[in-house]
């Protein structure tokens, strides 16, 4: 089903807004001009992952003490334990085997639309 998530201009950059779509809680994140939709369940202990921090990615050149921010790779960290996920793909940053569920999100006629499976 397609769920309406409101107007893009109502979203603050870097903030997460949690709404119910298809019977499940989904967090919508604005990162610059891009939008992402993430299910609000952490694969670790089922914490409310979308209530966590959204921050830029961090890139290392391998030398201790030297790091750079990667603003093109936003990361969502669960508020319970800090497990980190690439918002664009849902995949864990370190360890990789687990992921948060993400959904396609588009802008149609000035409205954000999330495509979620089934349920009404």
């Amino acid at each position, binding site marked *: 089903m397609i769920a309406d998530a409101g107007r893009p201009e109502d979203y603050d950059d870097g903030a997460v807004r949690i709404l119910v779509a298809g019977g499940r809680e989904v967090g919508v994140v604005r990162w610059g001009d891009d939008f992402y939709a993430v299910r609000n369940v952490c694969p670790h*202990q*089922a*914490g409310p992952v979308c209530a966590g921090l959204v921050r830029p990615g961090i890139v290392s050149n391998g030398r201790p003490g030297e790091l750079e921010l990667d603003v093109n790779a936003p990361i969502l960290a669960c508020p*319970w*334990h*800090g497990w980190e996920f690439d918002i664009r793909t849902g995949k864990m940053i370190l360890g990789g085997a687990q992921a948060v569920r993400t959904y396609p999100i588009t802008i149609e006629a000035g409205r954000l639309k999330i495509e979620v499976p089934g349920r009404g």
Partner: protein
Amino acid sequence: MAGYSGLYIDSDIHHRWVSEKDLLPYLSADARGFVEGSSQGNYPLIPPFLMVPHTSGLNKRLDGFGPDGQPPGSHFETLRHQLLDGTGISRGVLSYDITSVAALRNIYFTAEVARAVNDWSLEQWIARDDRLYGAVLVPTALPEEAAKEIRRLGRHPRMAEVILVSNSLGKPFGHPSYHPIYEAAHEVGLPVAIHVAGDGYGFSQISAGGVPSTRLEFHTVIPQPMVHHLVSFVTHGVFERYPELKLLIVEAGVSWLPWLMWNFDAHAKLLRRESPWVKRDPSDYIRDHVRLTTQPLESSPRSDQLIDLFEAVGGVEDILCFATDYPHWDGDDPTYIASRIPKAWWPKVFYQNALRLYGWKEEALAPAGAARPR
């Protein structure tokens, strides 16, 4: 997997005050001067140790703030909603968040502060909910003062344990210098808990190799001193001297226990002559006297791998006591713990071992709380 629907006892809940000024009514007029102060430089109730900063800025779950921004663990209604009702905890032991107040450099003032926070905990938290029980926080720098505090409050029906955090004498906790504390706990019939990280309060080393530089380094190695404390309890004969005393190791993990039991027993056979008061295998003392909280249960790639390790020494299901560590960022949800241990262990780990540890009656426990939200 069908979920666990029985009783829960939570052996590690962290509660705190919003502001140090909340403690003023519980301090003597003289001690209040340290907090109120007439100058800008009030004496802070945080000792001059360097805590390793957390990358999120806070070592708490970030949805734990109260409605007006109160720090996680400081707002009763939030704790009740998220923990007591949310997970159906039957009883829980409040073990403080800012335990460093019992590790201040002025050892006489810190004894006063420990008394104050124990009274504050009884009045402001324990009196508000029948499910909440307390821990007697003691000033370990002055073991005789600690013993007085245990005798003052230890027989209160809502006090569940004596809690040691700061290792203020810089000696492993089994050292005879600390025995007045155990004598008093034994006398009033309370178990003694040692909570991890008190070796980082500036009197001893948080880890064996030196001072950690990052939170990852710190967080990975903090169980190390707890292993030493436990070994010292046995080698200094604490359990022979106080035969009914129980020890709860809080928040130090579990998977090191099989290694320790094997090594300790083997070494004791070789070195028995130097401590003849150790009359049994060290692992026997551990099985009879020592309990460990589940949190933080190690994350083996598959849950059966951790259980196989436990089964190699056997009886670990009689040692573990469930704990959430709420509202800390590395806390464990009961559903998660249920998924990591065998179903047959659930009743013992979730409440029966703690019942025996605290000397409580099962029929007095509150029934499981509201329906779990997930």
